[in-house]
């Protein structure tokens, strides 16, 4: 039994507050034709489901819902598949409780 299709991450992220740094994503995926196993793992491992496959079968990231955990960095940075930073000061997720 793998990912429950019934879990909608978007609904969960809707509870959170964000200040999105428009046009300055803090995580980037290296251009590729076929995704590495590491990149494919991010489709499932990212808790905010920021990684998705496009129609060419490449992995893309949209950081608007990112909760800045660092999981994708731990998996994807060693192979050079992604570049990972924190957002600029004050931007990104704003936890009320944490």
């Amino acid at each position, binding site marked *: 039994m793998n990912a*429950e299709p019934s879990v909608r991450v978007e609904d969960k992220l809707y509870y959170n507050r964000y*200040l999105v740094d428009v046009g300055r994503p803090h995580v980037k995926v290296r251009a590729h034709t076929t995704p590495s196993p590491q990149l494919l793992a991010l489709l*499932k491992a990212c808790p905010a489901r920021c990684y998705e496959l496009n129609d060419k079968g490449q992995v893309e990231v949209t950081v608007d819902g990112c909760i800045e955990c660092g999981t994708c960095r731990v998996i994807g940075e060693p192979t050079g598949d992604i570049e990972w930073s924190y957002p600029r000061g004050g931007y990104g997720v704003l936890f009320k*409780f944490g």
Partner: protein
Amino acid sequence: MIDERFDAIVVGAGMAGNAAALTLAKRGMKVLQLERGEYAGSKNVQGAILYADMMEKLIPDFRDEAPLERHLVEQRFWMMDDRSHLGMQYRSEDFNEERPNRYTIIRAQFDKWFSSKVREAGATVLCETTVTELARDDRGRVIGVHTDRRDGEIHADVVVLAEGVNGLLGTRAGLRARPEPDKVALAVKEMHFLPRETIEARFNLEGDEGLVIEAAGTISRGMTGMGFIYANKECISLGIGCLVADFQRTGETPYGLLDHFKRHPSVAPLIAGSEVKEYSAHLIPEGGYKAIPQLYGEGWVVAGDAAQLNNAVHREGSNLAMTSGRIAAEAISQLKSRGDRMTAKNLSLYKKMLDDSFVIKDLKKYKDLPTLMHTNSQNFFLTYPQLLSRAMQNFVRVDGTPKAEKEKMTLKSFVKARSWTGLFGDAFRFARAWR
């Protein structure tokens, strides 16, 4: 501002950073603390249990004003399979004491208060500022930081890296390696709001009494991981975490696991009817003693999660962070008062003081446990919970089977699943790692 020179720059306003900045400022040092969040706490995630002893060492009368949720009077451990849990429960009236030992807290609120104390002590605290890089001289010594706020460097005699588990600056500067997937866990967490009375009734609490449930078993689907449920005043913190390497290997999703945990028949009634107000995620250092990196160097020290100081067995992290931050600051101020420079040789005093504290002693005690749990995760987190649940059911279900036969069935199921050598081996390895 930029032209000013500081005695110390502290990166991060979490538990370690606040402890360090407070201690330095109280000892009269000129401190600049930099935090990337909108305010101290706005990026931080924890269960969260606060250990009073370590907090008292920083702010003795914190109970009078800190935003505390509930003091803990009860601890439950649950070993879960898909439909049941086998529990151990410890509750004591002794915990209803004048100066309680453990509290639940809400990190974003607690850190904000803690930070106000750091300011009061005289430190300059700058939020909404991400430190992008360490500044170094031509001999590689750390002399300050670069931030994303303004051009130029800010200089200090020493930089305290209290930047949390990801430790990006330290990695970028080559001071330590990036955390590895099998040395960090990813935890996801939700805040479930309910009326106070409902929480107290469901958990059998009175007034500000609190309770925590730690859960392991099939909820982590054979991965190394744990679930938790903490009662706050008007909300319940609920979450689950597993090693990143296990997520990577199995393709399980963190939110799938969380949802499964929430729907477990033992958990669902506790949160029924609640309103979820936040979903968060964070890494937890799990590598233990063997994962501790170099702790000091020319012009820098590292404390807290950034130094991977976390006791996964006892779920202690914030107290190790607070203590290491405080000890780092004490070492620095000792050097400063003697007029000694912040060289690696002199800053080794920090490591010496930390080695003598409970922080390193505790981590050393369990140095073999993280590897054991990880390499045997199928047994410890899937097979044993199922076996124990079956054993318990054999014991309590009255169905006319003779007791002797029931016991034989239980024993057989254990041996069948793990073999005698497996059982003895596991028990032996576990006892040795725990010793």
